[in-house]
């Protein structure tokens, strides 16, 4: 409160954005440094153990491995930012080709989860808040608490047991699609991965909406509206609901951030040809350029959506706006 005239809001926003950029820079440094820990170097990994020395030297030169580490980092970062993420150690093709096809599949998954899971969680969150401490609320809250604890792969395998193998045989247990082919070729196979991720993101959004709606319903202006004799339905829809917009935007951003990590395990469970499954395969094959590319992309996505969530939170929360 010391220097309000200097616009603390703008300062806080700039501080957040700088912190986000710093995180991105650190992500790139960590990813680059991690590969430096590997025994041997990339050239040795490509040509194999028994290769001739001159061939090794030529490849080292080609991969800039004969330059100082800092220069290597800079060249790697520059190439990466201009869309050249190197070549896969497994199939020798540019990493970006394979990653690109997988990104669109993962993005489809993300859109479907956000488009169905968020409205569901918001609706139930509002219902729970309106019926606070009644049976609907307590059951939903306990369910959310329980679901929040279960690891994604356990949810996914549980759904496969229930709907695709042991109990019922309604849905395909794994996604039989070549990487690169459209996942819409077999829409049925999208159901279980999407359902798993909806269950995984539900508790968080549900609680956020419930908590913020309870705050609103306890507020003086809602009490005022009640005293004026407005119907409960009118109060919830016209006075309280608009306040759910900000937490909703935040929930979407944080859900996207969660999915940056959640896609890895869930795509692996269902063999879904997305970027997360690509990462697991690359980790198992130790395909370093591929791992670097996917980790940087997912981490950058995570940083950016979390930054957006923070910015929304700052813009809509008077307490935070005035803080610092």
């Amino acid at each position, binding site marked *: 409160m010391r220097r309000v005239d200097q616009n603390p809001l703008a300062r806080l926003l700039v501080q957040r954005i700088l912190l986000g950029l710093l995180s991105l820079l650190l992500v790139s440094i960590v990813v680059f440094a*991690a590969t430096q820990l590997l025994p041997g170097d990339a050239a040795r990994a490509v040509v194999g153990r028994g290769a001739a020395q001159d061939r090794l030297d030529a490849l080292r030169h080609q991969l800039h491995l004969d330059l100082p580490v800092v220069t290597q980092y800079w060249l790697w970062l520059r190439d990466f930012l201009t869309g050249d993420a190197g070549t896969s150690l497994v199939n020798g093709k540019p990493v970006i080709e394979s990653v690109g096809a997988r990104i669109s599949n993962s993005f489809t998954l993300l859109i479907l989860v956000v488009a169905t899971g968020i409205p569901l969680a918001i609706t139930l969150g509002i219902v729970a808040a309106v019926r606070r401490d009644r049976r609907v609320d307590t059951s939903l809250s306990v369910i959310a*608490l329980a679901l929040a604890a*279960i*690891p994604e792969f356990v949810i996914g395998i549980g759904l496969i047991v229930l709907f695709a193998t042991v109990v019922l045989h309604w849905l395909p247990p794994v996604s039989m699609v070549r990487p690169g082919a459209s996942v819409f070729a077999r829409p049925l196979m999208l159901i279980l991965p999407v359902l798993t991720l909806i269950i995984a993101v539900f508790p968080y959004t549900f609680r956020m909406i419930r908590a913020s709606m*309870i705050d609103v319903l306890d507020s003086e202006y809602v009490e005022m509206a009640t005293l004026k004799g407005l119907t409960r339905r009118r109060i919830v829809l016209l006075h309280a609901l608009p306040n759910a917009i900000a937490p909703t935007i935040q929930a979407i951003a944080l859900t996207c951030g*969660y999915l940056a990590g959640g896609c890895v395990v869930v795509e692996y469970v269902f063999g879904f040809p997305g970027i997360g499954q690509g990462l697991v395969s690359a*980790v198992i094959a130790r395909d370093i350029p591929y791992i670097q590319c996917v980790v940087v992309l997912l981490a950058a996505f995570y940083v950016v959506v979390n930054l957006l*969530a*923070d910015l929304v939170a700052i813009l809509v929360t008077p307490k935070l706006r005035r803080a610092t």
Partner: protein
Amino acid sequence: MTLWPRYLRSGSAIFSTVLLTIVFLTTIIGPFFAPASSLDFIGAPFQGPNAHAWLGTDVLGRDVLSRILQGGYRILGLAAAATALGVLAGILLGMAAGYIKGAVDEIIMRLLDVVLAFPQIILALLFVSIIGPVPWLIVLIVAGFHAPQVARVARAATLRVVEEDYVRFAETIGMPRLRILVQEIFPNIMTPLIVEAGLRFTYSIALIAGLNFLGLGTQPPIPDWGLMINENRIGMATNPWPVVVPVLLIALLTIGTNLLADAIGRAAFGLDRGSRETQPASSDETATVQA
């Protein structure tokens, strides 16, 4: 303690205690009751339950029941170690930040913000792919993810306590700062930290089980629930038990620890269920939700 009566009155507390007792007994005394070795081949792969193997055989023809009974204590041990390490580091950082304040506070908290800005499972995959699936690495990674969140809780609690008269008094009579931290502040920030440790234990189990499931944690032929699920899911149609039982055990274990932490939290300070975080948090949301 006034905590116990309130704790025992809550249904979810009793329910979660019963759940956890069952799972803990399975993991801890289970190994002594295993009918066969977890590594011996006792028959054809994916046989259904029979008189010799109550839950049938797994992908390589080993006894499923024995592998389940022996496949739990390792993950509990790793999760406990990771939680203890992360909570300890978080308490030290958080108390230092909250008590010393000023530049130290700012530096510690901003650094932890940066750690929080990383997606956890992805960084875990990066390090495991470079260094290999060794237990100490997994404990360190998971502990590293916990420390920032615990530090936030410890710092917030410390900031509340340092304003109290007894801390002021201790400072006035010239008690050394380290002794104030240990004797005056630490006992009074224990309750929120116990709840936080419970939540952290739940995530530790989830994260480590996930890595094991991906084949990047415990390595075959060691029995482990997460790994068993992955090894045996190709045979689910023939013998579902080596998948179904570990899935249920992991689910019950994580639900149990989460409900228990929640019940303790509510018994201790009437925490509302809605205002409690249980997912990886971004830098500001804890402040937002608790504001």
